[in-house]
């Protein structure tokens, strides 16, 4: 019976069924030094849904995205996208890194950053033609940044930078979108604009996975959630996954009861 309990808590429920999903992670363990950032993590992200990855600081949320994209080498585990190793299907995946990871002092313009999203398609020498530019502009329109196309990127506010990053991801024309803390340090208007774009992506059948840190907005923005703290605590529809027990298990003592009440309504 003890065994049943653990399985029910969603600890190790790996099976083969999820492997053709847009993104399926099995038994992923990543360490930096002695302590694991992720331990034996299983997760499945379904098509046509917006999923949040939730957990306290240092829970391994960003590490999960990096491991998925092959930017860190796991100790063990596998990652499949659309039934294939991620390496094979990188062109179907768009990635929005944390804003703070790049040097915004870099000498380039907004439109050039969006065009970077077409790097695979442009290759080494193909010239940037008008239709590339038009498409890049269209992406900027979708995030409401079309008037900033010629600006130097260092002149943008945090929220504007984030929208440019999203426009670049849109320019990739991918099916699976991985975003790392896109709402961190952005203004309310930007947050609304980004959510609208993500919802339109979902509505067109794309898969959106967002590392998210604001528990208060999880249930308004997302259909599904993955709660992690080094290991998976819970995974599933937001309504069933966000319970006092799972949140307590994810955040330990870090959530006051008042906060819990607020999050859970």
């Amino acid at each position, binding site marked *: 019976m003890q065994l049943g309990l653990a399985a029910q808590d969603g600890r190790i429920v790996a099976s083969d069924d999820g492997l053709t999903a847009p993104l399926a992670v099995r038994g992923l363990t990543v360490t930096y030094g002695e302590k694991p950032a992720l331990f034996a993590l299983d997760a499945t992200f379904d098509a046509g849904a917006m999923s949040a990855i939730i957990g306290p600081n240092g829970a391994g949320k960003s590490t999960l995205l*990096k491991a998925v*994209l*092959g*930017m860190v080498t796991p100790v063990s585990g596998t990652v499949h996208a659309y039934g294939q190793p991620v*390496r094979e299907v*990188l*062109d179907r*995946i768009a*990635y929005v*890194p944390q804003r703070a*990871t*790049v*040097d*915004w*002092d*870099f*000498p*380039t*313009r907004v439109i050039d*950053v969006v065009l*970077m999203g077409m*790097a*695979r398609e*442009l*290759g*080494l*020498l193909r010239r940037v033609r008008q239709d590339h530019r038009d498409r890049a502009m269209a992406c900027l329109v979708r995030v409401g940044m079309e008037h900033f196309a010629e600006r*130097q990127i*260092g002149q943008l506010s945090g929220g504007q930078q984030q929208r440019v990053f999203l426009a*670049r991801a849109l320019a*990739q024309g991918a099916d699976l979108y*991985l975003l790392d803390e896109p709402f961190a340090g952005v203004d309310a208007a930007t947050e609304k604009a980004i959510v609208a774009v993500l919802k339109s992506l979902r509505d067109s059948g794309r898969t959106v996975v967002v590392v998210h840190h604001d528990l208060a907005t999880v249930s308004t923005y997302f259909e599904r959630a993955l709660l992690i703290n080094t290991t998976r605590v819970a995974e599933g529809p937001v309504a069933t996954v966000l319970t006092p027990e799972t949140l307590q298990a994810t955040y330990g003592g870090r959530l006051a009861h008042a906060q819990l009440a607020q999050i859970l309504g």
Partner: protein
Amino acid sequence: MIGAEFVALSLPPILIGCLAAIACAIPGNFLLLRRQALIGDAISHVVLPGIVIGFLVSRQVSTWPMMLGAGGAALVAVLLIEVVRRAGKLEPGAAMGVVFSTMFAGGVLLLEQSDTSSVHLDVQHALYGNLESLIWLDATGWASLFDMQALAGLPPELPRMAITCLIVTGVTALLWRPLKLSTFDEGFARALGLPVRALSLALVIMAAMAAVAAFDAVGSIIVIAMFICPPAAARLMTDRLGQQVGLSVVFAAISAVTGYVLAGYGPLWLGFDNSVSAAGMIATMSGLILALAAGFGPRRAPRIA
């Protein structure tokens, strides 16, 4: 006949100086933006052990073994810096300091231990180069530029430097897009599946090539100065990468020309009879340009975070 003397004595060194400066400045732009500006410094330090080993292996003072040795040493240094940085969990600066000082010390020791006194191979030459000696004896005037026989007598450093400069320019143009992308946002570049490591390596190889060829012609001082000063000055003038690289080329060329002319003729104008080190003067000029850009460049101000 001033023309003839100029073509024979000054034109080749000026051209070689320009080409060397440009070949170093172009990769320097990317190194600067990647916060790896000092890689150029490290590379130029390890050139010395490289040429000594090249000499000891081939037992002759000929260009190719020594350049191969220098190029090999540069690559070994870059890889070693990476290994030491990761394995020792050191900041890049400390890792560079460890590696280049070790290799440079090894080079000096080898030089002292081996019988190189009979050949022209010494530390001074490695540092200052000998730009002033690269003259074109076969030239009789501007017409010699069209005289195949006279052209054959050009100092071999000139075509070598020209080819290096051409390769560096060509590779930079070819890899422009991925280099720019991986320099700006390495994480995104990796997520796109770009070979980020191979690109870094290509950049370093390009820098090493420029450093080795330029060092042979003009010495290490110019190499270090040109990797950093013209790109840094250009960065303070513009916010567009293309313009920055273009401007850095212009600044490099200006440093080389004015530096050479001032070193060669300046003392004469002041009434002395000897010229001074052209390499030192070129480095100094690049420093002055940087100082001007830092004082007045339109894009000099630090970004308010």
